[in-house]
């Protein structure tokens, strides 16, 4: 793991809850599928164990409901979905994120503009 990857991982940690909630808001999903969908959306460095642990924690905190879907060939899958509390948490976190990212973009733009000239 090089330095860039470590940084990405550290940054991701803070917003992983938000990312997982956002994925589940699209559709109910099981652990490995959440990982896959996060990676499809460009979050390459998200750790499998981090997602798995995050799902468990959000579930324990009462933000998700879960149900087991038996499958004929593969292993049984534990699906997670947002409940009311999860949706509220998502709304709040999303708002925080937008505010934060706007502020950061503003800062970074200022820097790159200043730097460029």
């Amino acid at each position, binding site marked *: 793991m090089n330095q860039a990857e470590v940084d990405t991982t550290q940054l991701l940690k803070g917003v992983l809850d938000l990312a997982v909630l956002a994925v589940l808001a699209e559709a109910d999903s*099981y652990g490995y599928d959440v990982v*896959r969908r996060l990676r499809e959306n460009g979050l390459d460095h998200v750790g*499998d164990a*981090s997602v*798995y642990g*995050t799902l468990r*924690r959000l579930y324990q*905190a009462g933000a998700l409901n879960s149900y087991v879907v038996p499958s004929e060939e*593969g292993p049984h899958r*534990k699906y997670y979905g947002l409940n009311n509390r999860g949706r509220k948490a998502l709304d709040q976190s999303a708002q925080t994120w937008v505010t934060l990212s706007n502020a950061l973009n503003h800062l970074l733009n200022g820097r790159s503009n200043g730097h460029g000239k």
Partner: protein
Amino acid sequence: MASNDQANDVASYATSVRAALSDLPPEQSEILLEDLEDHLREVAAEAGGPLTERLGPPEQYAQELRAAYGDARPGGKRPDPALRDLRRAIDRLTTSGWYRQVRAFLPELRPAWWVLRAYLVVLVLTAAFSRNYNLHPIPNPFSSRGLLEIVAAAIAIVLSVRLGRRNRQLAKGRRMLAIAANIAIALVAVPVLARMGTFPSYAMLETGGSGQSMQGQPLYMPNGAVTNIYPYSRDGKPLTDVLLYDQDGRPLTIGPKIGDVTTDYPTGADGQPITNAYPLRQRHFYGDPVAAPRVALPPWPSASPMASPTASPTSSPTR
């Protein structure tokens, strides 16, 4: 990779992860790791190749898991273990097969409840508007009262079923209201049902005595309950307003209500009812007076020992 190797790989990887997290309290690690194997199998099936290649060493995986699960616990607030045990017990219950079967079956009983609640409402209303009426589980169709009850129940059932079918599409708030109303009906009906005597004599005792300022019950004789007394004179004339007292000088009282029969006591000059003047003036619920029975008077001996010696020896009983 052969599926057998894959299974071994998953098992050994999971064992290592569990070992690295063995310091967690057991209930916590159980929740965290309960479907770890399923999850790892999924990864292995997708990726191919050994898990360590895909996920890194199990120790690191365990560290990441621990960090993601434990670090960002909101407010550092841990759920109360007792509460969590309860929640898990409920989870286990609600996912068990028989619970699902019961849950699936209960809606089938809805129409039965619609009928039952209509019956209960009529029963409760009957009990409320006639405190001493002798309630029966099935009203007597040959009394006007019972017939009224049956007709009311039939109408109520029709309304109740219609209401029940319509309520399926209710909004959430109204649905709650409807559920509360149903529970209220069930609760109110309980004391009424409990009061409903199954033994007639029991019911009579209760309706005769309960809640009345004047006490009174039927008299019990070896051949049945006595609800009125018809005195006759020696020569067979029916007597009225004969005052009867028991061996201790207490007024002998019956009634005032037995079954659907009501007694009208005459009121004395002091405003108090005279309860021991026989025969009692009784009427049925729907207003008809209770008719006096036909009686067979005994033939007196021609020389009555009670009569004075100067009485006429030719006097004979008349009817």
